[in-house]
């Protein structure tokens, strides 16, 4: 059963996921120990010519970028986004905050002293909404997974 879990975890974490708007690379599998803080980086590549809203897009109607993780033996401490690019728009009096190109979202977890030893994974979801200058795609949520080996 554990081998099966490990295999399925490897299969998901090894694959980048693509949509017309972006490609995400899940965090690298991590070897962790109790009491440690571990970092999981989700790589995002936005299709050239497009952008996604930042985690704080500066317009109340725009849908922010969100990375959420399900509760797991590892405790989530923070989810950090890079600085956003501020762009002027024709529809808002103030610039909107977006991400484009390639960037990373960094999540930090602590490993409790009683966390179970062995392989595990934390399922997460990345919700995003993106546009170019003339067109927007509906918001979308894609699954991500952080796999680890607790030694």
């Amino acid at each position: 059963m554990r081998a099966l879990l490990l295999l399925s975890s490897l299969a998901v974490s090894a694959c980048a996921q693509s949509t017309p708007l972006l490609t995400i690379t899940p965090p690298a599998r991590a070897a962790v120990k109790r009491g440690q803080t571990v970092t999981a980086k989700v790589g995002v590549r936005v299709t050239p010519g497009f952008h996604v809203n930042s985690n704080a897009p500066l317009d109340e109607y725009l849908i922010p970028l969100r990375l959420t993780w399900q509760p797991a033996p590892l405790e989530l401490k923070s989810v950090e986004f890079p600085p956003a690019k501020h762009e002027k728009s024709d529809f808002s009096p103030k610039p909107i905050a977006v991400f484009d190109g390639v960037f990373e979202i960094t999540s930090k977890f602590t490993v409790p002293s009683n966390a179970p030893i062995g392989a595990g994974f934390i399922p997460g979801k990345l919700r995003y909404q993106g546009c170019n200058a003339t067109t927007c795609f509906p918001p979308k949520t894609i699954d991500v997974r952080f796999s680890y080996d607790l030694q």
Partner: protein
Amino acid sequence: MARYTENMLARSRALLLIPLLAALVGCVGTTKAGSPVKPESQRKKAPEFSLKDSNGQVVKLSDFKGKVVLLNFWATWCGPCKVEIPWFIDFETRLKDQGLVVLGVAMDDEGWEVVKPYITSKKVNYRVVMGDDSMANLYGGVESLPTTFVLDRDGRIARTHVGLVSKSEYENDIQELLRQKRASAAPVEFAGR
């Protein structure tokens, strides 16, 4: 596994070509910028629908028999859609008496909770109905916003714009269709759901 991933990436790249090609041709609709509306013989009936407006009243496409209809799919999270809204307010004000109807189809998942405050704050003077996936599917999927269908007085799709186009392009379409007489005096038939 590697081949599967490669196939997936190839499919994704192919999908990417659609919006990118749209961008290359000027980020305009399915017809070229400046091209006229479709000849009457090539126009297809617009699908009939029945949706509720912000006051809870049922709106059917067939309510607008004999009118030129600007059917605009939009959402509050869509920036380019918001650029168009003041244009549509202007069209509704100036061209309503000549036979134009502007109808917004909001595609927000959160529904009226977000749409109503928005259209109130922007003083939207045309009717807005709440759309859904089945409505979008009726009109070919509507995979990106804004998507706008310009219908002639006989309820046929004369032009489709995917993405933001200029105000003058819309106005040219509308003026041309307002000038055209109805094909017949017979009742307008809309494609059934």
